[in-house]
């Protein structure tokens, strides 16, 4: 028998598979094609205080083994998320959800987190200080240990739910930023957000994306994400949600061996809408093959001494 349960700061998930924010909307598109209650949880679309259209199109470009996106935090705003999206979501998903919150000021982060903290269906809050596609916000809070700590403290002061800071890979030392979040009271960290990249259209001799740059995701980033999870695991004692290019159950195991307690699946959902479900179903078989009884036993299992 295999046991796929994992626990994130007191929140027990039936398995570690969590569709990543921005690749799963608020769940409905997927609930139409399968019962999404098979998932450990899912992280809903990054939400800000005000409604946002996001960036002008084109917002998507293809790359080798991956894609760039420059959506720019399109979302209906925290009011609508609480009054409309969450009640709709409760009808299709019975488990606690991960609330992904973003912002353009410390006050905005705190206000949104304080409001989402009161929502019963929210299991933990993932604070996005790493969106590469907005200006004067998002990633600018996640690129220095000081500002990452400042957001963490502001959010922790107004919430009782576990707070996971979502970190950017576009930094010189992600472990130092993770450590700063831990010292400021974060319950966990979630990494990585997308890697900043770009493509140029040869015919038009201009960037493909209207925003010029976008965030790279997909299997292309998996080794980078894995390396960062590894480094952060060595630097902090709080749990890590690992993500970046995860596409199969073996990738989940690899992320967990590097130090992740749970794993988010992102771009894979867009290419195969059944990807997260398939990973959940495949996981026990892969565990059996690898002689893993309890999934929690392997967290950080590749670190020796």
């Amino acid at each position, binding site marked *: 028998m295999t046991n796929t349960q994992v626990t994130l700061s007191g929140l027990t998930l039936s398995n570690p598979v969590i569709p990543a924010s921005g*690749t799963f909307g608020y769940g409905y598109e997927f609930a139409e094609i399968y019962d999404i209650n098979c998932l450990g949880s899912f992280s809903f679309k990054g939400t800000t205080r005000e409604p946002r259209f996001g960036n002008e199109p084109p*917002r998507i470009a*293809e790359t080798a083994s*991956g894609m760039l996106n420059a959506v720019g935090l399109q979302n209906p705003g925290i009011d609508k998320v609480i009054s409309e999206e969450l009640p709709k979501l409760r009808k299709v998903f019975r488990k606690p959800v991960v609330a992904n919150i973003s912002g353009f000021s410390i006050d905005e982060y705190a206000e949104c987190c304080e409001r989402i903290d009161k929502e019963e269906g929210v299991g933990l809050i993932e604070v996005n200080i790493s969106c590469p596609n907005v200006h004067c916000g998002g990633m600018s809070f996640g690129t220095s240990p000081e500002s990452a700590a400042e957001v963490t403290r502001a959010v922790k002061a107004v919430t009782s739910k576990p707070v996971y800071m979502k970190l950017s890979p576009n930094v010189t030392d992600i472990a130092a930023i993770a450590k700063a979040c831990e010292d400021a009271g974060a319950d966990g960290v979630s990494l990585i957000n997308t890697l900043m990249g770009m493509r140029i259209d040869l015919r038009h001799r201009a960037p493909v994306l209207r925003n010029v740059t976008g965030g790279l995701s997909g299997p292309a980033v998996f080794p980078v994400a894995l390396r960062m999870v590894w480094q952060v695991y060595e630097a902090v004692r709080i749990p890590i949600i690992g993500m970046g290019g995860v596409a199969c159950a073996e990738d989940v195991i690899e992320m967990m061996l590097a130090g992740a307690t749970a794993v988010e699946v992102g771009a894979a959902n867009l290419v195969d809408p059944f990807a997260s479900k398939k990973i959940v179903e495949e996981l026990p078989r892969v565990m059996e093959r690898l002689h893993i009884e309890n999934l929690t036993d392997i967290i950080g299992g590749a670190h020796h001494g």
Partner: protein
Amino acid sequence: MYNVDFKIISNRKIAKNTFEMTLSGDTRGIAPGQFVNLKLDGFYLRRPISVCDYTPDTLTLIYKVVGHGTEAMSKMAPGETLDALTGLGNGYDTSRSGDRPLLIGGGAGVPPMYVLAKKLLAEGKKSTAILGFNSADEAFYEAEFKALGCETYVTTADGSYGIRGFVTDAMDLDYTYFYTCGPEPMLRAVYNKSVTSGQFSFEERMGCGFGACMGCTCKTKYGHKRICKDGPVLTREEIVW
């Protein structure tokens, strides 16, 4: 949305850089104006291709070779399989057509007009089609439209076949409503020239094709719409250029 493995029956060149692929497989849930999203070996994102025609167990797609993905598609052989997500997008609403609808397709925007013409004609509506191409060597499906019983005009930008000019140069006709698909400059020109309401099918770079990623959102008079899920068909009244 369904995930269907189709088998290629034929894949032939019908005009310059233009191929017609016929596939066998379950087409349930497909409607005129919708698209399918194809997984190609070696490419990360799927390729959205509009539906040209279908029966309960066959699907016809016409695609233009514009990049490595469609080039790879053009080399696929009968017997090979293609993983497709089907039933994507809202499709055309034929209930508003009146009794004399006009169908205007440009280039790769011609194929969805074919299955739409079939449906409108089956509903007893006297349908007229304008098919616009750059030149004679890019033109296709004139005979197919005519065989449906659809009055058909062909325009070419260089005058090498049919009416010289753009689709708008053939639009001085009597019609109750219109449906159009083609490159955005053509859609704008049709918008400006047309004298009735109508439906426009738009293209945008997509991530998923089924509404999850917000990669293809556009602004309309009635809020933000995802081209892949709330579109690709928008009505004249809601378009913001």
